[in-house]
């Protein structure tokens, strides 16, 4: 049995999605055109993950096995729709950036996966911490990926468009395109995520080697 702290921190490195658990790739690839998209999607997912984990773990002994998935999906979908509505109300620009990927949180394997693998077997407190850890790990990963892609692709960093919190790190002349523009295009998404995974693998390999030595 993991301690509560471990339950939380495992999501931040040991099981950080999508790097360690290669899950939730669709949003990871689609919304990380900008830093804002990254953290926005991450936090929205975290919210849904935490709430649905809490509810599912609370209801875990009532749900009949045959309609288990359907029930989980209803619970998750409810929180997704809540997120959708709330974001439309309070962070409309972010909501527009993320577009169809907000409703698609409902089919994010990370959420259903945690619901099944963890929340349906553990208590409310643990499930909350698990959801929070995995969610924040996901947010972190998406934010890093978003920042990297945006910076390489446009030279800018969109922190929060609604509040005009944008940074131009590498200024470009008017009408000029950045060298790595493809980074914000679909191919860049795949390549960038691939490169990040590669980096993680190399780090793990090195630390394993130094541990062995």
């Amino acid at each position: 049995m993991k301690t509560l702290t471990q339950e939380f921190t495992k999501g931040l490195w040991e099981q950080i999605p999508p790097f360690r658990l290669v899950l939730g790739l669709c949003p990871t690839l689609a919304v990380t055109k900008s830093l804002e998209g990254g953290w926005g999607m991450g936090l929205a997912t975290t919210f849904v993950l935490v709430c649905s984990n809490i509810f599912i773990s609370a209801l875990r002994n009532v749900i009949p096995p045959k309609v288990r998935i359907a029930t989980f999906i209803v619970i998750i979908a409810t929180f997704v729709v809540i997120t959708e509505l709330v974001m439309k109300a309070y962070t409309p620009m972010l909501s527009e950036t993320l577009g169809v990927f907000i409703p698609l949180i409902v089919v994010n394997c990370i959420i259903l996966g945690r619901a099944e693998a963890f929340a349906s077997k553990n208590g409310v407190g643990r499930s909350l911490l698990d959801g929070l850890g995995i969610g924040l790990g996901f947010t972190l990963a998406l934010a890093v990926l978003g920042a990297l892609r945006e910076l390489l692709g446009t030279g800018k960093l969109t922190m929060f468009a609604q509040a005009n919190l944008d940074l131009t790190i590498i200024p470009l002349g008017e009408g000029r395109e950045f060298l790595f523009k493809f980074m914000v295009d679909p191919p860049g998404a795949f390549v960038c995520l691939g490169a990040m995974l590669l980096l993680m693998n190399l780090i793990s390999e090195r630390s394993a080697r130094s541990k062995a030595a």
Partner: protein
Amino acid sequence: MRNKIWFMAVVLGVVAFLAGLALSGVKGMTTPIIEKRILEQKIKPSLDKFFDGLDLENDCIEDRQVLDLGKDARGRKQVTTLFLGKKGGKTVVAALQTKAAGFGGDIEVLTAFSLDDKKILGVKTLSQSETMGLGARVSNDAEPFIQQFGGMNYSDGVAMRSNGGQVDAISGATVSSVAFTAAVNRATVLVEKNVDSAAAN
């Protein structure tokens, strides 16, 4: 018991029922906020610009009216908001949101009218999802295509030049231009039809 059909139905039904309840609650809470935000952030700046220097007596955002346009072909309820500006107790300007299907989805347009001389004061794209660099140019206020609407007489509606009208299309984005013009035209029709009755209120 957990494998009995009725029990499965009840559990899933109840969970879904509660979900429906919760969602309509959240919907109820967020709708006014969304509405208010759209008014304040999207409509108001444009109206202020269009009606600049007219010294209207009323706050046209406050005095808005919701027009029920009936249902569209698919059965969706259609509404639009009419903004009226008064001067000397008389309605002198109006603005209206309309939309039409463009290349990549609906284009939403806010059109402002000067009622006395039947002229369009200006148009503003509220939302669109057209092709970048082509149809998407409709959202640029400085675009000649947008600029040409200002001061246009609308008593006979507006139409593309190709259809015998007065509007020049954005080259390479005919679909978007046609849609945009259709939306504006729809607004002129609605204004013609509704303003008198609205002004009478």
